[in-house]
């Protein structure tokens, strides 16, 4: 028999929407996390309430992982269709756990060396409670086959079902235990992929990008959030809305995204740290507001969690196709900052840093994430989220002392060397009374159309962009400095790129990663230098038109050597990147 | 209540009153003249106390009484020169043809302020001929700031 592989596998749970795949999958992830394993839990679901195939792909490891991977070693199928859909992902020696009564064609599975472990999951569920517990039975069975101690699953069952009452908890526990025992006894011995708790592993958190970003915003002093529900940004808003009231976060589910954006501006105008979160379609409605914030120099933080476009596109799927939109949106020319965290930890930092940037440069800051980064669960060490590292920097916002020194004639839009004017907040001091008009204006904020005044005010606003550029971080390099191939990426592609580079290097090849975080204003010189140091550059992006490649060329004049494009709504898997490197398209549209 | 001066030569013909105003203002038509008279008198009706309106009515042709009539409430103490002009401007044509550049109608509203003042003064001057100087002063004192100046200088 082939050797046993411990704590290094991928599991897929699949079923129809409405079968509870999401919560089962998340619960499963948590049980592994509690056992000290590193977890990478990726969801894939249709934008339907019921029907359509959904699945959770969970990668388990003793090392931190930034990507899912194929092949898959254990498939828990809640529908026959699940088997058919994931067949090609299954490794030799993989197992499929499925309930009795499912009619599937065993031949293709046998051909791939995959075992089918049928269990009376539905009967067990019905015996103990009701049919919906087939999920719990399936998870119990999965734990049994991998001989993963049941107690971890049990702790998650207790927590998850507590709200539904002790009886529900007990029944689920019984079902899980029964399935566990049956699966282990029947199939455990032959299944070579095992999961064990990791001795001495520290306690960890299991978190996704949205949660981390929300925490960062909270720690950064955000106490006003207005939003309109839109996948995949909704959970940021819901998380902040669900906080204990003592934190004092005022949230408003607005009537539409126009109101959501305008409310964030209104709150910021009054001196709060206000934020809104949306996806591409909602961002479309916020375009005019962006211009207002920039013109009246009001700080504004917008989280843009990208999803498949255009139009209503692929609501529950991932993409990175709004980069150029986010940079250019709104008519006319005005300053803004665009930044894209690439990992869950980076989302936390982006959450609070965005507010500092917004107040410092008194302009909109767009934090770009995507469905993949927003919703994928990852294990993090407790200190990966460090609240004491958070700083609240209000830039030129006038302190009470400075306000006290104001005399009449305060100019909200005073010309300064950096372009940033001292900012008084309304209602704080009798001398700080001012107009802010959204037409072109003078230093006092009144309407102005004169040539010289207009030129100077435009220069003032755009000067802030040059100032901000100095603070924008250079791209980060991961991997050996002199590699044959550099994977150039931004946002959530970083994880799969990093894993791909590791794979290439481990196999004797030569690759590194150049990750862009701050995208606008793009720090031109350091970017050009970083690119010039590379031997062969390939952008890896989840879009059709190679937007990062275009941005790099537009700002530095440097054309990358190739682009790898994926626009099918599913995140890059490291092996896809590796395979694609041989075939990547020369800069331009994907084949 | 201030004393009225002695009776002048009875109420004059409405036609004569209008002709005078028309001549004062070089208005091109009777309608325009009537518009000016109506709007100025209605504006005065907004701001003068009832007794003054009645006194004024006795000095003017009966046809203008309809403009001096005001329903219900007391004059608004905040009624100022802007509002006064608002009533008069309604009779001033302030729009030109279509504005093919920025849309809507082209407008000559820059002129409507001074034009409204001019019209008001045309009517004031015809009015003043029919009332005693100290009656004129009484009225001026009751008119809003700036309007009193226009009246006295008419």
């Amino acid at each position, binding site marked *: 028999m082939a050797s046993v592989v411990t704590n290094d596998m991928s599991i897929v749970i699949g079923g129809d929407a409405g079968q509870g795949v999401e919560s089962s999958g998340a619960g499963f992830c948590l049980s592994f996390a509690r056992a000290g394993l590193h977890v990478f839990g990726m969801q894939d679901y249709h934008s339907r309430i019921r029907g359509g195939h959904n699945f959770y792909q969970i990668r388990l490891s003793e090392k931190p992982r930034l990507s899912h991977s194929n092949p898959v070693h254990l498939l828990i199928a809640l529908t026959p269709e699940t088997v058919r859909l994931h067949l090609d992902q299954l490794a030799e020696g993989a197992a499929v756990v499925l309930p009795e009564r499912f009619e599937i064609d065993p031949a293709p599975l046998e051909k791939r060396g995959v075992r089918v472990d049928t269990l009376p999951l539905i009967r067990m569920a019905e015996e103990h409670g009701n049919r919906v517990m087939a999920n719990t039975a399936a998870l119990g069975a999965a734990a049994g086959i991998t001989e993963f101690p049941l107690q971890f699953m049990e702790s998650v069952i207790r927590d998850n079902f507590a709200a539904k009452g002790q009886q529900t908890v007990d029944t689920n526990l019984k079902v899980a235990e029964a399935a566990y025992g049956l699966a282990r006894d029947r199939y455990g011995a032959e299944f070579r992929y095992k999961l064990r708790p990791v001795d001495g592993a520290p306690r960890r958190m*299991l978190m996704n990008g949205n949660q981390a970003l929300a925490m960062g915003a909270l720690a950064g002093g955000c106490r006003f959030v207005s939003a309109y529900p839109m996948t995949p940004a909704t959970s940021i808003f819901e998380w902040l809305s669900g906080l204990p009231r003592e934190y004092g*976060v005022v949230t408003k589910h607005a009537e539409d995204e126009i109101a959501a954006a305008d409310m964030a501006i209104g709150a910021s105008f009054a001196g709060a740290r206000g934020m809104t979160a949306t996806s591409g379609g909602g961002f479309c409605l916020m375009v005019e507001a962006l211009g207002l914030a920039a013109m009246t120099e009001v700080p504004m933080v917008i989280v843009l969690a990208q999803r498949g476009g255009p139009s209503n596109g692929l609501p529950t799927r991932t993409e990175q196709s709004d980069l150029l939109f986010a940079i250019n949106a709104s008519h006319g020319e005005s300053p803004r900052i665009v930044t894209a965290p690439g990992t869950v930890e980076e989302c936390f930092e982006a959450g609070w840093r965005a507010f500092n940037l917004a107040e410092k440069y008194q302009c909109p800051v767009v934090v770009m994430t995507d469905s993949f980064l927003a919703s994928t669960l990852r294990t993090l060490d407790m200190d990966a989220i460090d609240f004491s590292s*958070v700083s609240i920097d209000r830039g030129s916002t006038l302190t009470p002392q400075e306000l006290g020194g104001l005399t009449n004639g305060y100019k909200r839009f005073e010309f300064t060397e950096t372009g940033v004017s001292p900012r008084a907040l309304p209602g704080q001091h009798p001398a700080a009374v001012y107009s802010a008009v959204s037409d072109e204006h003078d230093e006092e904020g009144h309407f102005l159309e004169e040539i010289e005044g207009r030129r100077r005010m435009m220069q003032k606003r755009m000067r802030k962009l040059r100032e901000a550029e100095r603070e924008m971080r250079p791209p980060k390099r991961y991997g050996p400095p002199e590699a044959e191939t550099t994977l150039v990426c931004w946002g959530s592609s970083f994880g799969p790129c990093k894993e791909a580079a590791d794979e290439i290097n481990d196999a004797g090849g030569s690759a590194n990663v150049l990750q862009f975080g701050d995208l606008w204003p793009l720090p031109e010189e350091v970017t050009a230098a970083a690119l010039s140091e590379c031997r062969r550059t390939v952008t890896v992006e989840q879009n059709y038109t190679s937007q990062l490649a275009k941005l790099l060329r537009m700002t530095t004049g440097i054309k990358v050597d190739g682009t790898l494009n994926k626009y099918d709504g599913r995140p890059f898997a490291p092996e896809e990147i590796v395979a694609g490197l041989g075939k990547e398209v020369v800069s331009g549209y994907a084949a | 209540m201030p004393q009225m001066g002695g009776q002048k030569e009875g109420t004059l013909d409405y036609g004569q009153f209008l002709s005078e105003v028309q001549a004062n203002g070089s208005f091109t038509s009777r309608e325009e003249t009537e518009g000016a008279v109506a709007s100025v008198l209605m504006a005065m009706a907004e701001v003068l106390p009832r007794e003054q309106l009645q006194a004024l009515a006795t000095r003017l042709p009966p046809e203008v009484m309809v403009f001096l009539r005001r329903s219900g409430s007391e004059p608004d103490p905040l009624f100022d020169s802007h509002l006064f002009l608002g009533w008069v401007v309604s009779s001033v044509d302030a729009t030109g043809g279509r504005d093919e550049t920025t849309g809507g109608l082209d407008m000559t509203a820059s002129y409507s302020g001074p034009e409204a003042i001019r019209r008001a003064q045309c009517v004031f001057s015809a009015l003043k001929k029919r009332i005693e100087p100290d009656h004129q002063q009484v009225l001026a004192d009751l008119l809003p700031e700036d309007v009193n100046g226009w009246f006295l200088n008419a």
Partner: protein
Amino acid sequence: MVTRLDPKLFDATTDITWCAGCGDFAILKALKLALADLGIEPYQALVVSGIGCGSKLPDYMNVNAYLTNHGRPLPIATAAKLANPDLHVIVTNGDGDSYGIGGNHFVQSCRRNPNLTHIVENNQIYGLTKGQYSPTSDKGFVTTTSPDGAIELAFNPLSVALGAGATFISRAFAGEPKHMAGLIAQGIQHQGYALIDVLQPCVTFNRTNTYDWYRKRVYHLEDEDYDPSDRKAAWEKAHEWEERIPLGVLYRVEGATAYEDQVKALEGGSPVSRLDDLVKDPRPQQYERLKERFT
């Protein structure tokens, strides 16, 4: 005990671009007087507007002024109030801004009841863009964009406000600035969304609804035996237009609770005050317990 202020405190030296005789002058005057009478100082008030002739009003006052996007002052003002409930927040914008492009925010504000005062400069026309018809133009009104006469029924802000749950609905007439100032003051004092729809002649472009046209029709509800807490009566009055137009408070809910007073997160401080506290004393340890949720 309120100390009345001198309305001149609100005077500004900005060049006013309104046409001579514009009804907005009266609204400006009335707003200054209302604020002064209530003892509200310029720095304590925030006047938010959209785009239009009337929306320039805040810039013509010595007060915190924010002239925003067409149709959008209501959400901006609502959030400013939530962020700093100490501010007296007033919205001044036109009928197109409020009832057309801003219509959704108008309806939502009626049911939301934020504590702000909404003064609508209703001249039944688009002035700034020089003479197109507006949501409140009467059916049949001929303009450059309604050459055969407006086809739609005029928007009725009072009945819509009533239907949407507004707790203070009133109408004023620019030709009666003192009466208007009284309504504005009542609106400011009202605990919730106060609508003051001001019938305001556009002396340049609207030659139908002139001062005289209104004078012939307006009457004061206060002069009749009218009970503003009577919703059915309010509905009837809201539909009076052709021959008689009621002025005054049409409908008022006594003891209404403003939106902000129902936001639990505001109980311990406002977003602005809490941020001030955090700057002084960040206390990062207050968030540590949140990590437990992820274990």
